[in-house]
């Protein structure tokens, strides 16, 4: 088992950010572990998603479906698509207790989105849990805590 340095984490997070900015969703989906869970909480940063709605709460199958939908040509809220640029910073790395092989990353992001002449800003914290295996990192869990998760949002149909 190896532990990541902050530089390792940044390299990986920048790569993920680029795939998302460029809407290379098939490649991004390839980063996911088969047991992965992707969660964007609503209203609060943490709760039991079994008893509370979320902005997005998907397993690997659900995420595969979402990526397929975004590429279907009939996801009208992304037609025309959003142009996206995100800055990732404040990266922290920690080992996951009692889970050898798992590494947790915490980072902040600032995302600027432009669509149909309107520019929007999103900000938040991303919590990644990665499985490091055979020199590759797979996403086991990604939680995106949006600053405005209890505010009305107009369009969040691109992926964070």
């Amino acid at each position, binding site marked *: 088992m190896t532990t990541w340095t902050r530089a390792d984490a940044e390299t990986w997070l920048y790569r993920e950010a680029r795939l998302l900015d460029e809407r290379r969703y098939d490649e991004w989906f390839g980063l996911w572990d088969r047991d992965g869970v992707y969660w964007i909480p*609503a209203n609060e940063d943490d709760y039991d998603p079994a008893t509370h709605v979320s902005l997005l709460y998907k397993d690997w199958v659900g995420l595969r479906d979402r990526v397929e939908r975004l590429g279907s040509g*009939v996801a009208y809220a992304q037609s025309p698509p959003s142009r996206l640029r995100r800055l990732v910073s404040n990266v922290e790395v920690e080992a996951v207790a009692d889970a050898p092989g798992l590494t947790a990353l915490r980072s902040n992001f600032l995302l600027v989105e432009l669509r149909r002449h309107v520019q929007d800003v999103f900000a938040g914290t991303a919590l990644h849990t990665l499985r490091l295996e055979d020199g590759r990192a797979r996403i086991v869990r990604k939680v995106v805590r949006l600053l405005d998760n209890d505010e009305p*949002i107009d369009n969040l149909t691109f992926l964070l």
Partner: protein
Amino acid sequence: MTTAPTELASSGVIPYDDLVGRGRVDGRIYTDASIFDEEMERIFHRGWVYVAHESELPEAGSFVTDVVGRQPIIVTRDEDGEFHAVANRCSHRGTLLCPVERGVAKTFTCIYHAWKFRNTGELLAATFPDGYGPDFDKSNFDLARAPRLAVYRGFIFVSLSPDGVSLDEHLGENAKHQIDLFVDLSPTGKVELAGGVLRYWYRGNWKATIENGVDAYHAQFVHRYWMSKVRPVRQGASGSGEDHEVVLPSIRALGRGHAMIDFRDLRHSIARRTGRSLPTDFDQEIMALRLEGERHPDVMPELSPEDARAYTEAMEQAYGKERAHRLMVDNGTHVGIFPNLALIGASVRKTRPVAVDRTEIQVQAAMLDGAPKAMNTLRIRGVEDFWGPASQGHADDAEVWERANLGLQHTASPWVDFSRGVYREQIDRDGTVVGHVTDEGSQREILSHWLRVMTGSAT
């Protein structure tokens, strides 16, 4: 945010009768700021408006804030369990009393000069009262109360006018029956809106949402991808793979601006073929999530046979075997209640007009009291998959409403058409008007009631 004055506004009196014809409306009813102002007065400041569900106010002191039309209010629950709707405005200098959306507080104290009010609206104390002289009557400074508040099956409505039809008359037997179907999927006859809120907004007129909520014509186009997931599940449920959508849903106008997409015949035809009758079998939003591949149990739990049996038994005990079966297969409703409430599948949707071209929506999942946890989790999954800013349903609808707002700026040929199916709609035995699933009778119901309210022939 506001639209430039049009010839409608500058003429002084808005010629409503010229704007709404049978099967068509002038598109300026969606873009004209002076019409929006009058809608706020006549629809939202006089009529019955949905504000909250009693499960959001579970204890003495619970409160929820809202804006009715343009009026900020606090809905409260007092010591005796009674609900009140009071102005969210200090009676002294007009400062917003309560800046948060929900919580528990038996009193509200203004931050400006510390005037303190009971949650019933009563002024408890003005600070340094001697400054107001010996004749100061603090009862003159109670918070303004909504003249009328009424509750149907847990749904709290207010009217800011002392006059007009009762809530009972406004809903009518047909809309009340649909609310009953929604609530009676719970074996205790109670739903709980305790699972958070999806909040979103769009650049467009509020009527776009309420018309769309009961429009089935668009589903196979705007929601093509979603329907491609729902259809195979429906067809697979028949066991034969054949297309049993030959039994179609219908459009039903319930009167007073209430309308629905009626899935009951379709669902009963599936139930007869398959013997299945659980709400999770018929909820379209859950169907769209039944994708191939092994699922993560935290995200998509399975309803165990024990859970299914326990729920069915609880329903049968509560309603009798025959009615329980009918309620489960009816599977709630898909109804729009004029002007701002929709009950669709497991969702409760509240629409708030902010400006002529800006609308906010709140969607909550209705959890069935007395139902297994996995059933409610599946309902939550279905609600969040279809509704909300990151959803696969609403988000594409909002794109349509925003494009409508842009297209309707062209007023040289102003008509918007809603005539589909006029020639083939029929009056049913219960007085409702029923039409083909792709017809526009539901929009005609909303717009004809809108016209009656805007011209003063209905409240």
